[in-house]
């Protein structure tokens, strides 16, 4: 098709180490086992090699698109409105506790 996989730099054969993948998994709060870390190291490496084709694009002086600027997107009135019913929301929670969400203790003491 019109993609440019042939332009991925040859030096990108192993763009990512297993330790880096483990670090990213910690940042993302994904508890991955060893097998999966191994598989993701290979797969993410392949995907990153492909997306590195963007290095060849001259973006000197080009502004990033951070959001689509469409004129007319208005600000809403800064007024109060009713929220969701607390009991109904807590009814969907895995562990409602005393009117809130129950979690393991996290304050040392």
């Amino acid at each position, binding site marked *: 098709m019109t993609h440019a996989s042939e332009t991925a730099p040859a030096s990108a054969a192993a763009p990512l180490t297993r330790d880096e993948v483990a670090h990213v998994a910690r940042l993302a709060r994904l508890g991955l086992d060893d097998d999966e870390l191994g598989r993701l190291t290979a797969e993410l490496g392949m995907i990153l090699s492909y997306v590195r084709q963007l290095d060849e694009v001259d973006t000197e002086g080009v502004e990033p698109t951070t959001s689509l600027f469409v004129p007319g997107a208005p600000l809403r009135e800064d007024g109060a409105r009713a929220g*969701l019913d607390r009991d109904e929301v807590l009814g969907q929670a895995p562990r409602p506790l005393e009117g809130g969400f129950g979690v393991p203790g996290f304050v040392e003491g």
Partner: protein
Amino acid sequence: MATWPFGGVVETAERVGRGEVSAEEVARASLSAIEAENGELGAYVAVAGEAMLREARELDRRRARGEALGPLAGVPVGIKDALCTRGLPTTCASRVLGAGTARPWSPPYDATVVARLRAAGALVAGKCNMDEFAMGSSTETGAYGPARHPLDRARTAGGSSGGSAVSVAAAMTPAALGSDTGGSIRQPASFTGVVGVKPTYGRVSRYGLVAFASSLDQVGPFASDVRGAARVLGAIAGHDALDSTSLDAPVDDYEAACGRGVEGLRVGVPEEYFPAELAAEVAGPVRAALASLERAGARLCPIKLPFTRHAVAAYYIIAPAEASSNLARFDGVRYGLREPGRDLASLYGATRARGFGLEVRRRIMIGTYALSAGYYDAYYLKAQKVRTLIRRDFEAAFREVDLIAAPTAPTVAFRLGEKLDDPLTMYLNDVFTLPASLAGIAALSVPAGRAGGEAPLPVGLQLMAPPLGEATLFRAAGACEAAARAVAS
């Protein structure tokens, strides 16, 4: 393939409105079609059933009292499982929201688009199958198993809104809602031979759409014909105070545009969408559809969109980056699945590892990496700059032409499982739909006929217009459909 017994969306609503058929009768027809075929096709992951019949009977009572029922009176609509529906489960086909468990998440509110459909008289038929969190192009990464192509059950119906496409293609409902982040409405519409619209970014409210990539996501309709899609879009479009990215611009009369013809329209044909290696079974029907537009009075103009070739790379940085941020909320605390942990970090890690499927984990990892310290400029910022160049391609083209026509997808429906273990090959199937998503412009897919040997499969023509140019899309789609009907009759 089965046909919906009451005509399209427009005919169904008009017959219910006139009392020629009751809304309850229409609802029962939809429910029995779903019951007969869903086991094989996997279009629905939850069916409204009795609730839909209750809504239909209420409509019939209102009609008996002489009330006007609205432009979608009694029209059953399938709703992608990424859109919140009060009283019906909403799981994004993910275990993390309880998909496949006895306790799927049940939202306490309707998405704005669902509320607007109901206000227009539509009946919610149920929740449609999808790739998990809309991440995929084949409706096979979700927890409910795949949706299947009505013409060949070994093939995909496309994705991620595959269940919505099948609902319409298999005549379970005359319309459905999907969401399109990088092609998730247009590609399944192309694969299954129905109409699918990705409106301009901001044209339709995203309130109540579970967020995947917030700078790209947009809700839109599927329908069995062009006017049906126009009517549904007219009902859901417009400003919503609950979505600060929704546009406060008037909603054009899309339905009137369908019959207006294409006399004098300048239609750009981008050479990048017709590479030498494009499958003949796709190129043939698409070129025939272009010729039908020309015969109807449009002028075809060759154009160039040179940054098309970098769209896949830019998208597969930007969308995962936004997804990794949006999906942080699924942590086992407020809704859905919780895996126990001795402390908060292990509760998060265990819940997210078990709750998210493989493709979602992959994208969270790509996105987290692209946003992490030291890599942000090289990946995310670079991709956002390339996105600007892709937008400029379209801005330049739209100074010369009124709309752009191209294939929706580089292939017909592929086999289930064929690309599942090869993420990059799966991503490359989105090559023709991603640019319009990155530019935020309006686009749709309209059937261009069928091609390929003994069991021909549908091919879609993609039409793209400048921001808020939906009416122009419907003019051209209406002309294509009229030409195809003239050939068929």
